[in-house]
């Protein structure tokens, strides 16, 4: 057995390298090789994005030479009515999706954790399946649904489709937090005289708040960036931004896309940054209130 092999002929200190059997990379001093691997990795993954951002400020059309700083591509982008409409469409869709999906998802999470309904297991499975469904399958079935019931494709159809697929993300995030909270605290509240509604309002929701906000921001980011679902369910105009980008790229690379891409990047990153920073900001406010003796 392995242990016997390990003991036989291997004294505590010497570490014999089995040169004949190990793959060459392992022979290197591990931290050094891996470290440079990581550096190379970061360069490769960040470089394309940085380059796109850089060239979005290029004063010429070239993708090879940086000829000077200019904001013309951004101006082109914002002056193009179609593109501008797409930007606002994407933001609008993301906002609505965020609100509706968060509400539905939170309710679903609460129901799954706290209710002992018989069909709870089935709903749970139903909630998990969208998470593993490839987007193209989702897109196709959504498209078929809308056309079969005679609904015109538009921003609304995009919203409906995206909400359907965002609910599960919210439920999973909120449910984790809710389960961690434990039943005790809610029972303690009821024990002390709070009705179910009051318990929800005064105890459960405040404790759940960070998870709900994080889930909401996640949905916003996912929805804003979404392509495949939007592609299948969008009308002709206005279209969400990623769909427009896709069409543009099909016709060839133009510098305006650099600008659009960079802008989208900023919005996505800002959303994620907000999701990470928010709990810390809120914490500080609570602390300050306590210091000043205000009511919590």
């Amino acid at each position, binding site marked *: 057995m392995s242990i016997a092999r390990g003991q036989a002929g291997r004294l505590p200190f010497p570490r014999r390298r089995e040169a004949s059997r190990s793959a060459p990379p392992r022979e290197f001093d591990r931290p050094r090789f*891996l470290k440079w691997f990581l550096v190379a990795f970061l360069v490769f993954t960040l470089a394309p994005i940085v380059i796109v951002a850089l060239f979005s400020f290029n004063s010429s059309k070239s993708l090879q030479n940086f000829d000077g700083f200019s904001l013309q591509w951004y101006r082109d982008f914002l002056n193009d009515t179609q593109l501008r409409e797409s930007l606002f469409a994407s933001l609008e869709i993301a906002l609505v999706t965020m609100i509706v999906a968060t509400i539905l998802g939170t309710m679903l999470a609460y129901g799954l954790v706290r209710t002992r309904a018989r069909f709870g297991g089935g709903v749970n499975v139903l909630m998990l399946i969208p998470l*593993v469904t490839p987007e*193209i399958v989702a897109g196709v079935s959504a498209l078929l649904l809308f056309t079969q019931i005679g609904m015109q494709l538009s921003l609304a159809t995009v919203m409906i489709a995206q909400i359907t697929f965002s609910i599960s993300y919210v439920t999973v995030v909120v449910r984790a937090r809710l389960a961690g909270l434990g039943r005790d605290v809610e029972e303690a509240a009821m024990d002390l005289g709070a009705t179910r509604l009051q318990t929800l309002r005064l105890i459960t929701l405040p404790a759940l708040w960070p998870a709900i906000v994080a889930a909401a921001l996640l949905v916003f980011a996912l929805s804003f960036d979404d392509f495949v679902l939007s592609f299948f369910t969008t009308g002709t105009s206005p279209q969400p931004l990623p769909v427009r980008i896709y069409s543009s790229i099909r016709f060839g690379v133009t510098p305006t896309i650099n600008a659009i891409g960079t802008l989208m990047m900023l919005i996505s990153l800002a959303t994620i940054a907000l999701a990470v920073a928010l709990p810390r900001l809120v914490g500080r406010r609570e602390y300050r209130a306590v210091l000043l003796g205000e009511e919590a």
Partner: protein
Amino acid sequence: MLLPGGAWLLLLFAVPLGITLGISFGTTDELGNPLYGWHPENYEEVFDPLFAPVLLRSVGYAAATVVLCVAIGYPIAYYITRFGGRYKYVLLGLVVIPFLVNYLVRIYAWVALLSDEGLVNGVLSDLGLTTNGVQFLNTAYTVVGGLVYGYLAFMILPIFAALDRMDPAVIEAGKDLYGSPWQTFRHVTWPTTFQGVLAGSVLVFLPAVGDFVSAQLLGGADTYMVGNLIQQQFFGAGNWPFGAALTTVMMCFLMIFMIFYLRSAARAAREARA
């Protein structure tokens, strides 16, 4: 409480899937509108020699993507968890940030870089290495590369979680027992983190099979994947029921994988408890 969310999901997710299944057996009228019917030959057509290579290619590309993601992602996660120290989460953040950017924008970045007028060709010709430019796009390699670039984060995160959960003392003990770092890895580290690798593989494989963005933008007609095929059916002069059939076949195929994965995970959980 359950009701609104559950009802929505039921109506807008489960039902459409049913519709997809239904249409897949249908046919079209003269105008190309889908009709319901019983035409199982749609499914035969899926496996027609004309289309079968596309299916196989999709699976092949997705599999290659998974392998590459493991090969690249595992060392990254390993370095960060073992040698990251205080900066562990900072490094993880740095690694993950590119993946927060829109997939489309990222693929576009590669298109811009690798196209004939792109930066890479520009540098190469400036260096005098090439005169007419190298054809980067439109190959299987770029498509798979695009897929890897798209989904790598889904592999890194589960592996990171699995490695992070491991007790470093176990690796030390392994080193004492096995001597060489490679053996330690093979007998100790890898088996322990295997579930993480499996989870990452599933998270990469499932979307990769159905992806069409990468193949469309970075490849050409020779690199078509099943996603492109499906997309054509619905947006070209295509056949909706056939598209539905393709979708259903793909979904079933992936479901089989999911079931295998879930059983493996359940078994591992049981063994861990024992």
